[in-house]
């Protein structure tokens, strides 16, 4: 075996060990991989080369407190996070009704929502909908306190798979009936 192919083979063993290990490998761990005695300097050189070999690839060889490990580059975290999403419970009734009021009655202030629902609106409810990027502030009403006016976003339409608010089921006819009872 030539010197070069030998180095490749040694790096391969290190690569396999690091890719399959559940925990970082210390230099001592890695020295145990090889039957023949290896200098720590040689091992460090091999690890440097291995790091270079992966420089343009998906994983990076990093050194942490307890040793070396391969880890996914940061840019992939967003993909990996999708593998095991924690599903959040359903929205509360307050959130859904607030959303409905904003969708059907925009632009509305918090005061409008409270008037329609007959109860105070928890700021947390508005925040949840804003964080979801379903509603945002589109202006202020020119009354004392200049309350924010809320409207729904394009993202809201996208998530509900409709192109315009006019595609929301018309509810006014139904309303008239209900109210007349």
């Amino acid at each position, binding site marked *: 075996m030539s010197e070069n192919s030998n180095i490749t083979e040694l790096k391969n063993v290190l690569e*396999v060990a690091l*890719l*399959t290990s559940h925990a970082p490998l210390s230099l001592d761990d890695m020295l145990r991989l090889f039957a023949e005695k290896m200098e720590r300097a040689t091992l460090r050189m091999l690890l440097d080369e291995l790091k270079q070999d992966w420089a343009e690839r998906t*994983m990076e060889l990093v050194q942490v407190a307890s040793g070396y*490990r*391969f*880890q*996914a580059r*940061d840019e*992939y*975290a*967003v993909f*990996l*996070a*999708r593998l095991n*999403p*924690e*599903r*959040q*419970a*359903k*929205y509360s*009734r307050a959130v*859904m*009704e607030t*959303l*409905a*009021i904003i*969708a*059907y009655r*925009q*632009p509305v202030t918090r005061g409008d929502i409270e008037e*329609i*629902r*007959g109860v105070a609106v928890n700021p947390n409810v508005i925040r949840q909908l804003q964080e*979801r990027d379903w509603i945002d502030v*589109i*202006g*202020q*009403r*020119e009354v004392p306190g200049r309350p924010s*006016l809320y*409207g*729904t976003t394009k993202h809201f339409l996208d998530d*509900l798979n*409709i192109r*315009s*608010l*006019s595609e*929301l*089921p*018309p*509810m*006014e006819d*139904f*309303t*008239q009936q*209900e*109210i007349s*009872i």
Partner: protein
Amino acid sequence: MIETPLHAKIKGEEFTELPKDLYIPPDALEVYLESFEGPLDLLLYLIRKHNLDILDIPMADLTRQYMQYVEKMRAIKLELAGDYLLMSAMLIEIKSRMLLPKPVEADDESDPRAELVRRLMEYEAIKLAAQRLDEMPKVGDGLFVASAYYQHISQVKPPEVSLDDLTEAWRNVLKRASHFKHHKIGRSELSVREHMSIILRRLKDDRLLEFTQLFDVKNDGIPKLVVCFLAILELCREGLLRITQQQAFSTIYVQIASEASA
């Protein structure tokens, strides 16, 4: 006892005579006693050790050998004896049934050893299968799977909301609103509301727009232009817009009321 010719196989060769050293001193076996998995395992050991033909087991020899080991085991491991004693009884029963005269038309099925042979063969097949399974490389034992590290960021999957959920919520709102006499839910076109939001958004970005800039005459049809105009009027009525014109027929400007007063 019916003497049957012995068909023993030793390294593939047939032997028709009993090996001279059929008897193994129990002392030599002491080391194995721990490793027997039960009476079937011990019987298989004896059969293999003495190269007996499983399809034609010499019951007298096998039973005698077996009893010797069971005695030895009883001496050192009493709690094991139960299963083994049961087997002793079975072997003795088979042996005694074989002493009875064979019916002339006897087929293989009537061989008193048939059931024992079936069980021995079944057990040996399982024993071999277990050895094979044991030898297979397994994850954690000779098989190494990728397990590199990644930075876990937890992504909370937000609740799903459908159109039905939304309209259901709106229906509830309306039902409840009907209880408040003072509140009146007027009939207005949803698309007007949507345009009110669209216009407010544009004015938030552009501050001041010419009235005509709010209309896309080229692309929007008449109904949409009308809706847009109604939206401007509604915004004006609600005091959200300020519309200015310096003199007759000059450019009309539209801006958010708060921006104008500031």
